[in-house]
C-alpha cells in the first residue's frame, strides 16, 4: 500500500468526521459541547458526534468525559480508528497504561495498510515506553521501521530513546544519522551529535560543534556540548572555561522565577560537570518538581551520580 492509498484512507476517515461540521457555527469550546450534546440528545447519537465531543472535552482537560464519549463512539463503530487512537492517548495520559496498551493493540488489529500498521506500532511502542517497558516497546518500533523504512522524525527520536533506555547507546548515532539524512530535521542532527558524545566519538562531533559555535547567537548549548567533548579528550581546563561561559549565558536567559525547563536541564549539566554538585542537584530537583520527562532528567541524574561517586 503506497502513500497515495494511505492518503485516500486517511482522507476517508477525516472526511467522514468532518461531514456535518459546516452546520456547527460555534467556535467556543463549551458552546460546541452544548451544541453536540443537543444533537446527540435529539437523535443524532452517531459515533462521529461522540468523537467530536470527546475532542472538545479533551481540549478542556476533561479527560474522564472524553474517555466516556470515545467508549460510546467505539461501541457504535468498533473500526473507528481516530477514536481508538484518541482513547489510547487519553488512557496513557491518565496513567492507565495497561488499558492504553490493549487499546493500541486494537489499533494495530484494525489497521489495513502497511503504513497504517507501522504507524499503529509506533503508537503501541510509545504506550509501552510510557508504561516503563522499553524492551517490549523497541520490538514494535523496529517492526514499524521494517514495514515503513523511511519512517518519520518522531519515530527516529522514539527509537533512539528506546535504545538509550536499554543502554544500547552505541546504536543511537546510526539511527539518528539516518533519520537526519532522510528528514533534514535539525532536531535529529543535534540528537545525533549528542549521541556521538555519549558514545565518545568526539572526533566526529567536535568539528560540527565548532562550526555551530561560530554561527550561533546564543552559544550555551554548544559550549556545553564542546565541554563534554573536551572532557572526553582530556582538555579539562578548556572544558571548565566553556562551562563557566555556558553558565554566564544561561544566567541571563533563565527567568529567575519561571525558568524554562530545557535551560534548567542545560544549567544542571553544566553545574554537574563543573563539580557544583549541590547546584546541579537543585536543578535536578527543580526539573523533577515541574514534571520534566524522564528523558530530560536521566542524563543529569547519571552525571551527578558519576561525579558524586568519583
Amino acid at each position, binding site marked *: 500500500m503506497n502513500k497515495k492509498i494511505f492518503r485516500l484512507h486517511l482522507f476517508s476517515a477525516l472526511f467522514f468526521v468532518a461531514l456535518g461540521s459546516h452546520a456547527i457555527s460555534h467556535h467556543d469550546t463549551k458552546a460546541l459541547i452544548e451544541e453536540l450534546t443537543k444533537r446527540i440528545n435529539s437523535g443524532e447519537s452517531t459515533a462521529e458526534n461522540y468523537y467530536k465531543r470527546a475532542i472538545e472535552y479533551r*481540549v478542556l*482537560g476533561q479527560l474522564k468525559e472524553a474517555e466516556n464519549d470515545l467508549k460510546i463512539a467505539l461501541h457504535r463503530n468498533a473500526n473507528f480508528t481516530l477514536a481508538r487512537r484518541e482513547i489510547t492517548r487519553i488512557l496513557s495520559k491518565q496513567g492507565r497504561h495497561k488499558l492504553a496498551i490493549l487499546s493500541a493493540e486494537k489499533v494495530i488489529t484494525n489497521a489495513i495498510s502497511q503504513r497504517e500498521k507501522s504507524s499503529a506500532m509506533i503508537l503501541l511502542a510509545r504506550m509501552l515506553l510510557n508504561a516503563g517497558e522499553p524492551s517490549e516497546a523497541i520490538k514494535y518500533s523496529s517492526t514499524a521501521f521494517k514495514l515503513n523504512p523511511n519512517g518519520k522524525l518522531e519515530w527516529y527520536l522514539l527509537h533512539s530513546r528506546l535504545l538509550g533506555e536499554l543502554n544500547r547507546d552505541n546504536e543511537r548515532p546510526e539511527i539518528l544519522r539516518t533519520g537526519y539524512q532522510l528528514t533534514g530535521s535539525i532536531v535529529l542532527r543535534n540528537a545525533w551529535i549528542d549521541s556521538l558524545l555519549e558514545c565518545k566519538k568526539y572526533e566526529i562531533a567536535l568539528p560540527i560543534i565548532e562550526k555551530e559555535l561560530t554561527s550561533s547567537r546564543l552559544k550555551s*548549548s554548544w559550549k556545553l556540548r564542546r565541554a563534554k567533548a573536551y572532557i572526553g579528550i582530556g582538555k579539562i581546563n578548556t572544558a571548565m572555561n566553556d562551562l563557566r561561559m555556558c553558565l554566564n549565558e544561561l544566567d541571563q536567559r533563565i527567568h529567575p522565577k519561571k525558568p524554562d525547563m*530545557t535551560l534548567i536541564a542545560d544549567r544542571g549539566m553544566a553545574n554537574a560537570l563543573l563539580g557544583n554538585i549541590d547546584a546541579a542537584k537543585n536543578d535536578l530537583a527543580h526539573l523533577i518538581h515541574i514534571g520534566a520527562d524522564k528523558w530530560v532528567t536521566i542524563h543529569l541524574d547519571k552525571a551527578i551520580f558519576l561525579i558524586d561517586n568519583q
Partner: protein
Amino acid sequence: MKNIHLIVIFCFLSISFGQAGNNIFSRSPYLQLATDSSIHIVWRTKTKMNPIIRFGKDMDELNGKIGSEFILERRTVDESDESINDALSLFDAPKGTRQFEAKISNLDSNSTYYYSVFDGEKRLTPKDSSYYFKTHPKPGTKSPLYFWVVGDSGTGGENQAKVHTAMRKYNQFKNLELDMYIHVGDMAYTSGTDGQFSERFFKMYEPTLRNTVCWAAMGNHEGKTSKGEDGIGPYYDAYICPKAAEAGGLPSGKEAYYSLDYGKVHFIVLDSHDLDRRPTGHMAQWLKADIEKTKAEWLIAYFHHPPYTKGSHDSDKEQQLIEMREHIMPILESGGVDIVFTGHSHIYERSMLINGAYATPTVSEGVILDDGDGNPNGDGPYIKSAGLVPHNGTVQVVAGHGGTNVSRKGTMPIMRSIFVENGSVLVSISDNVLTGTMLNLDGLIRDTFAIKKEGTVIHSPIENPWNPVTGKKPIKKKSISRGIKVPPVAQMIIRKNSQWAYFLGTEDPPENWNMLAFNHSSWKKGESGFGFGDDDDRTVLESMKNKYTTLYLRRSFALPEGIDYKKIGLVVSYDDAFIAYLNGKEILRVGIESGNGGGARNISPHEAEKTFEYFPFDTNAIKALEGGVNILAIEGHNHEKKSSDFTIHPTLILKK
C-alpha cells in the same frame, strides 16, 4: 471501504461543483515560499496545459522564462494512474485538478519582477501590473518590512471580504505595498477541505495573493482534514512551507513548523494544533535550536492557539492554549522574542509589554514591564534593548477577528487594547521601530502600538500595573521628598555650572515650554545653580524674594552612543522642590504634591545645604529619551514667597 470511497467521491464532486467557474484557473496564480533569490508561483487548472512562466523587471519585457521542466505538476489521487507518485498527488482536490508549482530561481534580492502564466504561447494572465512578486532582501541586511496579519477569517462571508477590502483601500490611500501576508490559522471553515480552501481563501484573497506570499500557520479547522505529523491534507497542498530552511532559519523537517528571514527580521511559525507542545517534543526542540541560531534584530513568532485570551476562547481553561503558554512561551522569551501573533479566539486583544506570564490562571502581577498604551502618540512606544535580548518584553496580539463572528468571555489582565469587532493588523518595521495598527472592517484604525529598540534597557515588573477591567491607569507615583546618595560618576552628561535658558515665574510660561520643539531663544541664559540667599548660586536671582516662587529652566543634551540607559540619573541640589520634564514628559516630582507651574500645591520645604542628591531614571524617564537631541526642562519651586533662600542646580550623569 468501497462504500466510503463512493461517499468521498460524491462529496468531492458536490464541493468542487461551481468553484471553478468559466475561468481557466480553478485556483488563480498565487505566490509561495519567497527567498532572497527565488519564489514559487502556484496555480490550478482543470485541464492539461503546457505550463510556462514568463517574468522580468519590466512589465513590457518579460524576458525570463521557465518551462515545464522546472514546474512541478501535481494531480488528484487516482489509484489507476501510475504516473502520479506520492509527492505529486493532491489530497482531496476535485478529480481532474492539476496543480502547477513553478520555482523561479537565480533572482536578484530585494527586487520586483512582473510575471505572467502561459499555456504554451497563449497568455493566461492579463498584462496587468498587479501580477508581480518581490524577492526578500538578503538575510541580515537592513530593509523596511510591511506585512498583514489575519486570523480566523475563512467564512467566505461579507465580513471577511470587508476586512480584506479595508486593508487594500488603506494601503492604496497610504500608497503602501505589502511585503508579506501572515495568516495565523482558520482560513478555510469549517473543515479546511480543498473546496473550502478554494472558495474561502484563494478566491477571497485572490488580488492580494497574486503578488504577496501568504506564510501560514495551521488552525484547528484546517486540522480537521490536514495532519501536521504527516504533512498531508488540503492545507499542505495549498502551501509550500520551508521545511528545509530554504528561507532562512534551521530545517525543521516538517512543513507544520518552520522559520524564515526577511532582512533583519526572523519569523517563527509553529503548529499549536496537533503536534506535541511539550519541551521534550520535536517542535519545542527545533524552536530552541532555531532561536539560539538566529542573529536577526527582530524576532516574531506566530501560531494559532493564543497563550493569553478571553475572547471566544479562554486561555486559562483550554489545554492547547495552556500548553503554548507554559511550555512554548518560556522558550520564546528566553530567546528574546518581540511579538507573538495568534488567532483562534475571535476577538482583537493586544497586550502591554510583558515577560514571564506563564502561570495558570494568568495574572498581571509581576509580569508587566510597561503598562503604557504603547501608542507613539499616547504613552509612547514600548522600549526594548537593541537586538534580541532574553526576557526584555513581549507584546501579544490575538488577531482572531479576520471574518468570523466575534465574542468576548472576559478580560485578560495583561491586555491593553481589546476590540470585539472584525478587522486585521498591519505591521511595519523600519530600522529600530515596529509599529502595529489594528484596522477594523470599516477601515477605521482602532489601535496603534509600537516597539522601539535602542541601547540597553533593563526592565523590572511594575508593581501596580494598569488594569484593563477598570480601564484606569495606576495611581500616579507620589511626589518624593528627597533623592539618594550620589553614586560614583562615569560621565557627566550635563555638568555642574552649565549654561541653561531660564524664565522667571513672574508669569506662567507658554503651555509648551517644556517640549522639545519649543524655541527658548528669547529666554535669559545663565550658569547653574540658580537662586538666592544661601551663597551657593552662580546665577543669583535677587528679584525672586517676595515676588515669585517658580523658576523655569531648559537645556538640550545628546546622549553618548551605546550607553546603558538604566545608569542615567539626575543629580540635583535644590531648595525647596522641583519637577523635571524630559522632552515634555514629567519624569520626576520632588517635594510637590500636585499641580505644576503656578498651580503647584503643597510644596515641602527642603534645604540644599550645598549638597546634591541622586534620582535614577525610572522606566518612564527612559522611555521619554530620544535618540538625538533631548530637552531637559525643570521648574524649581520655593515653598513660599517670603522664603529666605532658593536653589536649583540640576546636572545629568551616567553612573559607573
